[in-house]
């Protein structure tokens, strides 16, 4: 990151090579459009290039931080709204370090396994909120479930994921 702060393009390219697949995959899942996902990818990395000061180690690990920023930006695009989240405010606290290829594939397997074991209603509430950017009110209307149930499912789903990495 220090090299990027001093304007080193090759350092930025190396970061891109390491994390672009995470950022791109999130964009693609949310927007279901390769062109739009490439736009998200471009925007996220250009933001980091223009202002590398927004990320420092106290914000968590860079892979996780980029994933969260990419998801938020893709949802903003999906809902055709102006970027809502100020990236300077986002702190991400997560255990697995996503820098290494091997550690990352282990984490991916574990996340998918955990999602697979989740009750279907919990998983679908979580995915609708996260990947489709639906509000809990919209999810409640869509599924015919009470608002409180949806809120609880989203929270419980996130907690289940966390637990899978604490074990």
């Amino acid at each position, binding site marked *: 990151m220090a090299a990027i702060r*001093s*304007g080193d*393009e090759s350092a*930025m*390219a190396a970061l*891109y090579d390491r994390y672009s*697949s*995470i*950022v*791109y*995959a*999130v964009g693609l899942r949310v927007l279901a459009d*390769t062109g739009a996902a*490439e736009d998200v*990818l*471009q925007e996220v*990395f250009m933001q980091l*290039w*223009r202002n590398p000061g927004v990320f420092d*180690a106290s914000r*968590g*690990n860079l*892979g*996780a*931080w980029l*994933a*969260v920023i*990419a*998801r*938020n930006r893709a*949802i903003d695009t999906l809902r055709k709204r102006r970027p*809502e*989240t100020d990236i300077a405010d*986002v*702190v*991400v*606290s*997560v255990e*697995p370090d*996503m820098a290494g290829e091997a550690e*990352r594939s282990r*984490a*991916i397997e574990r*996340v998918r396994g955990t*999602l697979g074991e989740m009750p279907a209603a919990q998983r679908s509430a979580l995915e609708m*909120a*996260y*990947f489709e*950017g639906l*509000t*809990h009110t919209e999810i409640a209307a869509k599924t015919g479930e009470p608002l*409180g149930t949806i*809120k609880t499912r*989203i*929270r419980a789903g*996130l*907690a289940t*994921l*966390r637990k899978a*990495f604490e074990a």
Partner: protein
Amino acid sequence: MSVHEQFADDLALLALGQLQGDERVALEKHLEGCAACRRELDQLRGDMALLALSTAGPAPPRRARERLLKAMAKEPRAAKLAARRWTWTLIPWLASAAFALAAVFFFWQSDRLSQRVAELQGELVQQQAQLERAREVVATLTSTDAVRVTLVAAQAPAQPQGKAIYVRARSSLVFLASNMPALPAQKAYELWLIPTNGAPIPAGVFKPDAHGSATVIQPPLPTGVQAKAFAITIEPEQGSATPTMPIVMMGAGE
């Protein structure tokens, strides 16, 4: 401290960017004063990052990389710092236009800036208080006036002891030792971080004081190394890059 239960559902929604209206205002106000809930929010974002991982799939097309590099080349950051010559005398009308635009722009900016200044001042006060606390902790640990007492089973002879406290995510290490035997001149103790993979990493050179006490605070360490154990060897005063046997003290994580 635990998360306030009444905000637990809303924290998840805030992390997802979906909390609006009064509920959001109420929660943001609560977050200003509640470190436990702020930590939970950061962790919820971490959980979201895990969810993002489930999408992992094909790498982006090659052209996306080229596009990024091209865009970066158009905005070279080092160049921004270089002074640009402005040929005022040749085109004064352009300068006047620029001043007029700048005036409008600054007028608009000033309001936003003053808000930001107020926010920053608030943050600064908080950070100063945190810094002050952190300083006191470090000063206590490192003070030459500090009374260092190691409690052991009654009637046991005093044993050399070391305590390493290491936070991997921050690459942060604090080490406290007591009852360390004195060393010959030109020799010092060296602390080693033994990673789960790879060679021991130097984690600071120290000499005990007259009472056998010593501290190593925040030695430079590579980031994110998982520690299997810590060990101490005796080395030349300036320290070594690899440990010289024998290991005089060693301990694994609890």
